[in-house]
């Protein structure tokens, strides 16, 4: 399933999640470039898409969410504040009443440095 399909599924599922007021199962993952990091609200904006059909996904990042860096060894833990715009990340996430919530974040590289496609 490609990234935007996942995103769009998430968009479709969001109203259901609102109604249910419960976390739902992870929607696999989304991969894209960080647009913004807000440490005060612990939120991330990730730009992703297919071709020119681009979307921005806003994610809450609870303090308990594992954030790792692929380049810094074998998934070395890093802090939310170390993520920067232009970082390429892979996020697994789910929907809650308050919006999308990250379950795990992996920084896989920087846009300008290039990132090999994931298997």
């Amino acid at each position: 399933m490609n990234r935007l399909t996942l995103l769009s599924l998430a968009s479709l599922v969001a109203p259901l999640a609102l109604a249910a007021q419960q976390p739902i199962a992870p929607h696999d993952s989304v991969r894209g470039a960080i647009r913004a990091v807000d440490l005060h609200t612990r939120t991330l904006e990730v730009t992703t898409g297919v071709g020119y059909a681009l979307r921005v996904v806003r994610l809450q990042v609870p303090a308990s969410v594992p954030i790792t860096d692929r380049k810094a060894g074998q998934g070395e833990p890093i802090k939310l504040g170390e993520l920067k715009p232009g970082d390429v990340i892979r996020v697994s996430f789910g929907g809650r009443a308050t919006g999308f919530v990250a379950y795990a974040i992996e920084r896989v590289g920087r846009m300008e440095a290039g990132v090999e496609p994931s298997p």
Partner: protein
Amino acid sequence: MTRGWIAFAAVCAAAACRRPQPGDPVRGLSVTERARFDSGKVVFDSAFTPEKGLGPLFNGRACASCHEDPVSGGVGEEVEHHATAFHPGGPGRACDELAALGGPVFQDSVTPLLRAALGIEKEPVPPQATAIAERTSPDIFGRGLLDAVPDSVILSYADPDDRNHDGISGRPNRFLDGRLGRFGRKAFVPTLREFNAGAFQIEMGITNPSVPDEGTVAGKPLPAGTDPAPDPELSAHNLELADAFVLLLAPPAPLKQSSEAHRGSEVFAQVGCAGCHVPKLRTGDNPIPALRHKEVAAYSDLLLHDMGPELADICFGLATPNEFRTEPLMGLRLAKHFLHDGRAKTPEQAIQMHAGEGARARDLFDSLPPADRAALVAFLKTL
């Protein structure tokens, strides 16, 4: 052998030797691949209506609305609008494609339902945009071969720091997930399949399995009831067929060169055009034998080059406003307008509008004797 068999063999030989015409498939397709190409053309030519999913925002009603001349897959007269925000040196990415505000493509048409709901005639470009670009519709012949060129081949031409001191410093663009880009005037999109899937939604408002939602109107949700067709509006099967058609379109065979055009091909190399417009690329391994290990007369390195401030418009991915992908020149003879926004009416004008990394070749062109300039243009008109 009877005369009949000889005649039959001659006809077959003539057909095999026939040079690919615009709209033909690449040679060597299997029966199944050819059938998918033919069926894909039907999807490519299909005009959508609001009842079939068109819009609510759109630029065209069919792929062939904009890629139509002289046949499906060719050039179009349409011009569309892209907008982004460029903030170098800021805390965020230098380029914001305005995805949160409906960008980067801002559609020029709306369906009656959206017009009635919002009172708009097109998607408004938000004030955050720092530039609005016009984009013409290029032909898409031979793009499947470009899709099949390995990343390593493209990257082998990159020289971002101009270490060879030739004044040309092509660099790669990257998609949002870090993959190498190659399609689009800013080389943003990595694969033809993704370009097509995105284009169905962005250009026609046709949702599909890869892009199953309509997005927003300048960042605001679609008003209820303005998109009554159920999603996805294009099936996976039809998306795959359209992909097959685009992927398998052959590049038009260059015309036979006159002695003047042959001289022009030499001038093309002498003045340095070939520094960016690399005459031939080679495809790599590919599941489709007709695209595997083929030479393609792309006349492009598929990299970004600084073309100077006069041509600058939007940023896109890593591409700055000044940077554009080297336009493939295959099929150039079919173009009615030249450069990314069609501002040049002739190939000569397009050459003279080159600046930045193209300035040296432009100046050398300008200094040529008239006969050599004419020869170079004659060569371009054979592509």
